């Protein structure tokens, strides 16, 4: 998995996660919402980030929230769909 992408994603997630729950307390496979790290609204910001940073266009395929469930799944999505 691309470590550069991972760093970018982690850096971004740090800006939207709860300040009292550091991101390094969860593993790449843990659910971001389930762990309480983000709320469902933060999903929107993740979408904005993926659109602007990696040029992913969701308008054709729609959104499957399962694809944004964990760091691992987000990185997987970037690998498949980044332009």
């Amino acid at each position, binding site marked *: 998995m691309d470590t550069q992408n991972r760093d970018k994603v982690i850096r971004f997630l740090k800006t939207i996660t709860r*300040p009292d729950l550091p991101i390094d307390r969860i593993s790449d496979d843990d659910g971001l919402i389930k762990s309480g790290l983000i709320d469902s609204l933060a999903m929107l910001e993740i979408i904005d980030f993926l659109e602007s940073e990696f040029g992913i266009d969701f308008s054709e*395929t*729609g959104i499957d929230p399962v694809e944004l469930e964990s760091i691992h799944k987000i990185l997987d999505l970037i690998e498949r769909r980044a332009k």
Partner: protein
Amino acid sequence: MSAPSQGTESVRALRTNEKYAQMTPRSLYQSVAQFHENPQLLAFSITPKGNLVLWATVLVVLGLTPYLSPVPLPYLPLFPLLILAQQFPARRIEMMGFGVGGLFLFHRLVQLHVTHLFWFVLDAALVVGMLYIFFTIAQSFARLPRLVRNNPQIFLHLLLWCGILVLAGLPAGFREDPSWVIASNLSVCCLFFAFLIWRIGFMLYSGKRGSIQKTGFVDHLIYCLPYLGSTQVPYGKGLDYLLPKLAESRLDLAKAQLAGVKLLLLAYLWRIILLVLDVAFFGTFGTHGQIVDVPSPLCLRLYHIDGLIDLSTQHMPTMAIVWASLIVDMVYETMQLAIIGHVIIGCLRLFGFNVFRNTYKPLLSTSLINFWNRYYYYFKELLVDFFFFPTYLSFFKHRPRLRIFAATMASAFLGNFYYHLLQHFDGFIESGEALSFVKFYSYFFYSFVLGIGIFISILREQNQRGKPVVASSPGRTFWVTLRKIAGVWLFFSMLRIWDHPGSAFMQDTTFFFAIWGIHF
């Protein structure tokens, strides 16, 4: 051997006593409330004896659901299916598809008075056939014309509206007229289509994502023929959401089952609390039409919202009674919804689907968006999947606030309104109820205000996100939280004025102004 064993027992007992002695009321509450995560209990539940206790509990709890008003269905028929699902986990999906789907068709067709065996079988076959056609369409999604591929949900709803228009052209009461027997049975198909449209929508999404290729038709029956949760809202969404939540190992299944039992027990607890509210505030006692009045010195004599607004046209009760009625009725309705959701999700968990609750502590929400997320989770998800995201992804990409505003209004306002409009057509197709849009003026306003409220709440939450938490005394934090919760209660208590079974816009609005002392 006995002496050391007794010694070990005493040490263990001593340790247990010490452990309980050290427990604070909060940790004791936590351990009771989270009993489904207790490792010892989990280990016990997969032993033969523990499993017997689990199923005996489930049997009793499901057997009593007819007394669990407002739960609309008897859930005991699911019991044999649940046992089979545990015994043959690899075939769970098929068993649920055939079993739960069969129960749903039987229940719904009997409800629609389709009692003649020939028509019963034919109607069931038509409904399954219709679903199969949509499954085939979803499977060949990539080969659909581009226009349909880009707007599958719009085409799906256009198809339904064509059916509704055809039915609207038929003579009134045709369903009871024997000379219209074929049209009457075809209308059953249209009724099922209207009822299942959001579920079929999820099936089309699976087609769009390509995930449907890995599934069979029967797999989709678990949500398309929904005995669990017989409303238009798909509790547990579609197969794409459900499958990753399916417990694979025996221990995961046990965890899901205990979590399911917990929800079912919670439903009974809320029912008991509702009975207390009935007696203490509304002066009634009983369920299912057998309701008796409680003598007035024992209760506050508050009103449910319909009764309150009706009464206000003759004489307005005191403001204290009006405000108390609005707030207690909002709490009452929230708990009713929690009961229904807990039973449905509880059963899904017993089958091994570790899915989110439908209602999760909404009365402790500190913002409108938070309440909306926790109050009726699967309805909110429906609006998000079918209205919010499609709008969010298609419009105003470079204007973030406008983008959120458009998506929020598309879901909480227009989508919400449209969902209820379709429900109304259900009544028209099912029982030939006259189409009347009077109550929809009220609901239109309700959805509009809800949309605006949620948009503002989203902006406020986004502004707060990522900011460091400002340290303050526990007392101040408590009061700030309490004030926020009160604000949420007040907003939704007042908004319900425009959302009740007997809604009429002018009457509701006049009542709203009257409670602020403005009469016209």
